[in-house]
């Protein structure tokens, strides 16, 4: 029987396994060095915050795998031998495969900062990162200050996590406003204020120069590049993005760029070896997407796609309209379509912000044609399905504003802002 080996038990690998099981009775083995069972990586923060226990982050009960005849193997894959179709574990034993799916995800970026290997310096990606945080930052007595380096989604999550244990946080952000490489100015500035309102010491336009050690090889302080200021701290969170976790493939012969190079069928340069999720790198970007997409949803979609191909229905990875979501402390964020912080030459924005400074939207549209290109929404929930349809139908900005209420997904009895948004839209100063 054909043996499908999946390295990585995250959302990509597990989705692939589930769909392959739906479509076939091939032998499936999922290998993970991280945990025995699949858990939701995006929920790691809630374990540290005490909202959930590890058990709650597992989307399937433990009996699920046996019932569906999916074998789980805990182990670290040291090498892949594509020619002989084998993988080698760190203990030295091997496992043969007919088809291999590489779904190993990411690792935190370390940019060669002095002191980045000290105790108490870590990223926030894996279950082991969470354990390390629990060890070095269990409370505000052992960790009297934490410094976070890198202003993205993981950085702000880490800031929220630490603040629930009342650990003072200094947040070093390279950009001059939080996540403004992605978010337009109005939104990014609103988030600066929100972050500060949670008593986070947000330092914009600030880079890390080096991390200083105490006598035990543990972090003692960081030095800020711009000012030379030394900030004493016990934990440093390095959250300047993630990159594919593919060191083990270096000499395998599998073509690598930043990630594992794959074609539109998610296949590597070897037949029967695929890569999906965070670690896959498209030869050519698809539309406005980046060649490497380290997002929950794209991992899931790639898993669905590769399962089709492996089970005989050869399918391209053909993602629909872009969408994503996040939560910044108390402010929920959703995005549908493309809204760029650095506007493309054809792009214009309509921005509305509520006076309470926790809700705003930005709608991107085509300057000339007025066609709707995408929306960022903060503090107002909106329907994925409706925006997906409007994007497909190439609706105009006028149409979107007028029909915005159809897309509202806030709970019942919530105050609606569509009228306010409409009147703001109608009262815009006309730019000739």
């Amino acid at each position, binding site marked *: 029987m054909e043996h499908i080996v999946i390295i990585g038990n995250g959302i990509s690998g597990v989705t692939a396994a589930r769909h392959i099981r739906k479509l076939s009775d091939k032998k499936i083995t999922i290998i993970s060095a991280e945990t025995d069972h699949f858990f939701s990586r995006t929920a790691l923060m809630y374990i540290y*915050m005490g909202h959930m226990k590890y058990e709650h982050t597992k989307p399937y009960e433990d009996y699920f795998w046996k019932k569906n005849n999916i074998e789980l193997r805990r182990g670290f894959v040291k090498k892949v031998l594509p020619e002989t179709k084998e993988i080698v574990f760190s203990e030295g034993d091997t496992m043969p495969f007919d088809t291999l799916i590489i779904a190993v995800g990411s690792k935190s970026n370390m940019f060669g900062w002095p002191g980045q290997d000290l105790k108490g310096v870590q990223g926030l990606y894996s279950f082991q990162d969470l354990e390390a945080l629990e060890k070095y930052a269990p409370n505000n007595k052992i960790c009297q200050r934490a410094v976070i380096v890198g202003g993205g989604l993981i950085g702000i999550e880490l800031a929220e996590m630490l603040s629930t244990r009342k650990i003072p946080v200094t947040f070093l952000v390279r950009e001059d406003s939080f996540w403004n490489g992605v978010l337009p100015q109005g939104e990014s500035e609103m988030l600066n204020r929100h972050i500060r309102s949670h008593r986070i010491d947000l330092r914009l336009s600030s880079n890390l120069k080096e991390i200083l050690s105490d006598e035990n090889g543990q972090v003692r302080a960081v030095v800020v590049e711009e000012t030379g200021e030394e900030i004493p701290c016990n934990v440093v969170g390095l959250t300047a993005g993630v990159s594919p976790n593919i060191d083990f493939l270096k000499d395998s012969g599998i073509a690598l760029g930043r990630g594992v190079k794959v074609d539109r069928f998610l296949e590597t340069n070897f037949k029967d070896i695929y890569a999906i999720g965070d670690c896959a790198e498209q030869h050519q970007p698809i539309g406005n997407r980046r060649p490497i997409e380290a997002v929950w949803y794209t991992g899931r979609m790639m898993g*669905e796609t590769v399962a089709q191909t492996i089970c005989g229905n050869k399918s391209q990875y053909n993602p629909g309209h872009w969408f994503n979501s996040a939560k910044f402390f108390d402010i929920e964020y959703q995005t549908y379509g493309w809204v760029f912080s650095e506007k493309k030459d054809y792009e214009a924005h309509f921005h509305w912000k509520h006076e309470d400074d926790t809700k705003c939207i930005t709608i991107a549209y085509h300057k000339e044609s007025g066609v709707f290109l995408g929306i960022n929404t903060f503090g107002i929930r909106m329907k994925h399905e409706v925006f997906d349809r409007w994007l497909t139908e190439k609706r105009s900005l006028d149409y979107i504003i007028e029909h915005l209420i159809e897309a509202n997904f806030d709970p019942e009895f919530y105050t609606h802002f569509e009228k306010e948004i409409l009147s703001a839209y109608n009262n815009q100063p006309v730019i000739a």
Partner: protein
Amino acid sequence: MSTVQRNMSLTGEPPKTITTQQKIATLLGMSGLLMLLLASLNVDFPNKTLWFILSLLAITLGIIWFARAAYTAKHEGIKNDGVWFKSISSRGYLGWLTAISLTGFYIVLYFYPQFLGLSKEGSNTGLIAFFDPLSTLLSGNPASQWFVYGTLYTLAIFSFGIKFIWKYRHNRYERLRTWSVMFFQTAFAFLIPEFMARLNSDSFSLPYYDLKNIWPLNYYNFEQYRIDSFISAGDVGLALLLFGIVSIFIITPILTYKYGKRWYCSWVCGCGGLAETAGDSFRQLSDKTMNAWKIERWVVHSVLVFVVVMTTAVVHSYLGDDASAYWLTKDLFLISVAVFLTLLFAGIWFFKRNELKKDARYGAIGYLVIVLVLIGMHFTSGKTLFLFEAETLRKSYGFLIGAIFSGVIGTGFYPIFGSRVWCRFGCPMAAILGLQQRLFSKFRITTNGGQCISCGNCSTYCEMGIDVRTYAQKGENIVRASCVGCGICSAVCPRGVLKLENGPLENRIAPNEILLGNDVDLMNYVHKN
């Protein structure tokens, strides 16, 4: 990751810490409880009324102050920090201590009210007598153990309701719902029945009647003493009796059709009210496993059958045989029940069979056959209806379900099994509403395309133990018999995926809702298989 409680400290590390204000508030609340305890021990307070007022005020203000200190200084938003670290909310030492105390209180309340000072002859003493001033003020009568319980129950819903409103002050659905349960408890369960008792005289007497407490939750509503009392009270009594019948057969189906069972379970009901307010800290303790769901379905529907059988037997026992004396005779009643159940069953079978899972079909057929056979045997061989005397059935139901299940286990074990154990496993009213919600209602929880990240907050905080995530991550609507529509899954979702809605019946249970974001052709393949 072990979260075993190693100490019982109230303070501990953040986010377990409590503030100085919260410590004082705890002191205040505990001093109120201490006064009640002393009263139960028959301590003779000099100015009883004053001490009584002080004790209730201390408890109420203690809770409200504690909540204020916990929430109002923080941003609006989800307040679940440290839930699984705190001893009280993670089955730690304080959780067990609370469970044991509550359970003990219920056992005394139901089975040993004399310890609370109930006296068969002469006036009451102890805790019950302590409540006399308030009871006299409201109804003109001395207090009973049920008055003591009702007062404390109402205070709990009121003060923990305030806490809940602060906790969810960013969420209007939660606020309105909580004001609603606070109102229905205070007015309908507590004040109105007491005022109604004021109307009673030697010639006119209404039974204690909480109008929102509908049969079969109110399993004793059609017992002989109440029917006699209703009928003897003339038009008013008759109207109340009719209201009792109309509320289960007409009002309930209409409202449940329009809004789902939440109109009752999380907006009106007293059991639900307590679970949503005082029980809110324990909602995450409900069991989410598939096994628990299976047990739930069998147990709650068995209780429903039990209450139908018991009530039929009780009503049958006091009806007469002579049609000329009263039109509703024993035989006519039994035949009507049999016809009603058969028609109900036939209707569901005809229209909704495909929506019933295998065990639901077996259960429904099995129970119907048993009930009909027992009624048939009664007619053909004259055996006792349902094999037991009506009185035996009534007493067993009252003991097993009314006292042990709903009280001792249902509420006493809040800190162990979660706040809705009774509603989920035991309440026959919830079972009826649930059947209707599942089969014939506009209510559903919709999911938002492909936005679910499977984090598990929704499932964790579902007090009914529904694994909401299973549906959300598939983009499937949640249409579950047990959902009480508390709205917390939607509130705690960090990605805005869940929404409680009333909508058209068509495609309400959409198992193939498209998980957006992927290639449409591919999604067709995925769903075909």
